[in-house]
């Protein structure tokens, strides 16, 4: 095989199953690619070459079965891995080796997937550019001076830079989809409760959801199927069959499907180039036989403020566990300082500016006297947003919008302006508040940089995302003469 790193996950699994390449060869090819390009991209925080080659060897010994046996994957560093460093992009967890595996990690192993290492992210998944990582930013493989999105910029960049055909991300307000949009890859936030959160280091528990990153819709579907499904260790996990996502990705037919264009997810804040690629893709859906209508979701304009009250509130509580006692950093324990002093000094040294900002914001929103006006009001608005979705899904099977309002911006451009950074999530946040699944897939280029189209579906109808995504992707590949990533410039390393 010429270049094993250019294959899709489906092609990789087939090459291994047919004996054209061994799983060890595939793993080594990706480790070599990482060695060459990751100095420039910095998608990985930790590369587990030994663990990857050992798992690949098990594959070659015939011990691994399943549709993804032997396929390499990059795992976001917010998912715990037994014995393998897990930091969530934070200094406070530097050097921590978890004593257990997340359910997602376990399911990947069972599926025969080869985990190459852990990917860079905004600290505790708080950010839209990966610049808030304590370990330095990740670069966008399309242009190394630009951001790869966030918080899962490492996972998206690894996939876009051919360091891995698959990655796992997590999405609280868009952290899988916005990176997918700006790197020209596919990213899916499953229905909340569709993938177990056991072992996912919590940011905002009522919104966090892990999901697949890939270069094709079908690859994402196979990964989705491998990690989804009920888990008794997560009490919010949905006890129902996984929607038929792989079958839907293969269907490539949207005839008669009702597609709703969300009026409120356009206009101010959305770059003209992004809007143009989106409009063209919607036209294409119509040519493919879908019925396109405009739908209105009037409360979506409150989604961003609701999110920036709910998520920091939950974070302020979740991050209380970093107490300098059970894991990670401890600072100032000189024998004289009290526990509270050590705790405060440790958290001051271990958390970055964005994390502190959100903890304090959340603490404020939950304080007596402000609770009703902020957190309470945000939770009511969440109900209104859910009603908007429910009513829109009466006239449309899926909703569509641009996935991110802009193309990838230069590293440093928004890092000192929290509000400008927060606006990156304008289009992705509504689905998190509602709980329904959503996908971003490549829709073309603006100024030479990728634009993503978002598909949103009702809860537990994840299959609809893959049906639309699979059909649209096939038609766009025909138009472009291949995948969008094929037109990315060669990495200068």
């Amino acid at each position: 095989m010429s270049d094993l790193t250019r294959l899709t996950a489906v092609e990789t699994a087939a090459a291994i199953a047919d004996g054209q390449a061994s799983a060890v060869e595939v793993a080594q090819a990706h480790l070599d690619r990482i060695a060459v390009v990751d100095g420039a991209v910095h998608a990985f925080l930790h590369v587990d070459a030994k663990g990857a080659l050992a798992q690949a060897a098990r594959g070659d010994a015939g011990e691994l079965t399943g549709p993804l046996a032997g396929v390499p994957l990059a795992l976001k560093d917010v998912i715990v891995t037994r014995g393998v460093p897990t930091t969530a992009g934070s200094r406070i967890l530097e050097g921590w080796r978890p004593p257990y595996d997340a359910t997602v990690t376990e399911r990947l192993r069972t599926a025969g997937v080869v985990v190459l290492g852990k990917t860079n992210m905004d600290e505790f998944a708080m950010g839209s550019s990966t610049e808030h990582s304590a370990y330095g930013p990740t670069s966008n493989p399309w242009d190394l001076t630009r951001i790869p999105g966030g918080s899962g910029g490492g996972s998206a960049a690894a996939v876009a830079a051919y360091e891995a055909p698959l990655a796992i991300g997590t999405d609280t307000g868009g952290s899988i989809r916005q990176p997918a949009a700006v790197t020209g890859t596919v990213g899916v936030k499953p229905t909340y409760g569709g993938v177990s959160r056991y072992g996912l280091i919590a940011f905002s528990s009522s919104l966090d959801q892990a999901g697949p990153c890939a270069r094709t819709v079908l690859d994402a579907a196979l990964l989705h199927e491998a990690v989804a499904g009920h888990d008794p260790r997560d009490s919010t996990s949905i006890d129902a069959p996984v929607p038929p996502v792989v079958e839907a990705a293969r269907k490539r037919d949207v005839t008669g499907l009702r597609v709703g264009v969300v009026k409120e997810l356009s206009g101010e804040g959305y770059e003209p180039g992004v809007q143009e690629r989106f409009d063209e893709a919607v036209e294409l859906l119509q040519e493919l036989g879908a019925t396109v209508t405009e739908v209105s979701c009037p409360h979506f304009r409150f989604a961003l403020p609701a999110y920036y009250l709910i998520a920091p509130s939950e974070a302020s509580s979740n991050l209380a566990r970093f107490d300098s006692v059970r894991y990670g950093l401890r600072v100032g324990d000189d024998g004289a300082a009290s526990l509270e002093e050590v705790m405060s000094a440790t958290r001051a040294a271990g958390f970055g500016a964005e994390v502190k900002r959100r903890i304090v914001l959340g603490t404020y929103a939950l304080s007596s006297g402000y609770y009703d006006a902020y957190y309470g009001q945000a939770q009511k608005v969440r109900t209104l947003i859910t009603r908007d979705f429910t009513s829109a899904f009466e006239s449309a099977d899926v909703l569509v919008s641009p996935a991110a309002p802009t193309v990838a911006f230069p590293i440093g451009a928004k890092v000192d302006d929290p509000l400008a950074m927060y606006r990156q999530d304008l289009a992705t946040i509504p689905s998190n508040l509602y709980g329904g699944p959503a996908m971003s897939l490549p829709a073309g280029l603006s100024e030479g940089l990728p634009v993503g189209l978002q598909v949103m579906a009702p809860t537990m109808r994840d299959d609809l995302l893959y049906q639309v995504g699979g059909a649209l992707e096939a038609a766009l590949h025909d138009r472009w003469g291949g995948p969008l990533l094929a037109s990315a410039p060669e990495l200068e390393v």
Partner: protein
Amino acid sequence: MPEITREQVAHLARLSRLAMDDDELDGLAAQLDVILGAVAQISAATDAADVPPTTHAVPVENVTRPDLVVPSLNRDEVLAGAPAAEDGRFRVPRILDVE
């Protein structure tokens, strides 16, 4: 609407167990003013008054599991990840006799 003072931020930082110097408190007060000014527009959703709050996207109630004995995490592995351990336990700084 909001007007956040340094003293308020100091109180919030104390509640959050985050040591901060005056420069940090002033910087954060200014940023919180801007952020809260933006999120305060949520009060314009006046039709939210009579709406029940959503605490969770997918309604789940009374999730139970069989009461079975399963192995716990390995104690030594857990303590190996702690900043300080002694006699098979987490070691913490003093919590009594403060002031």
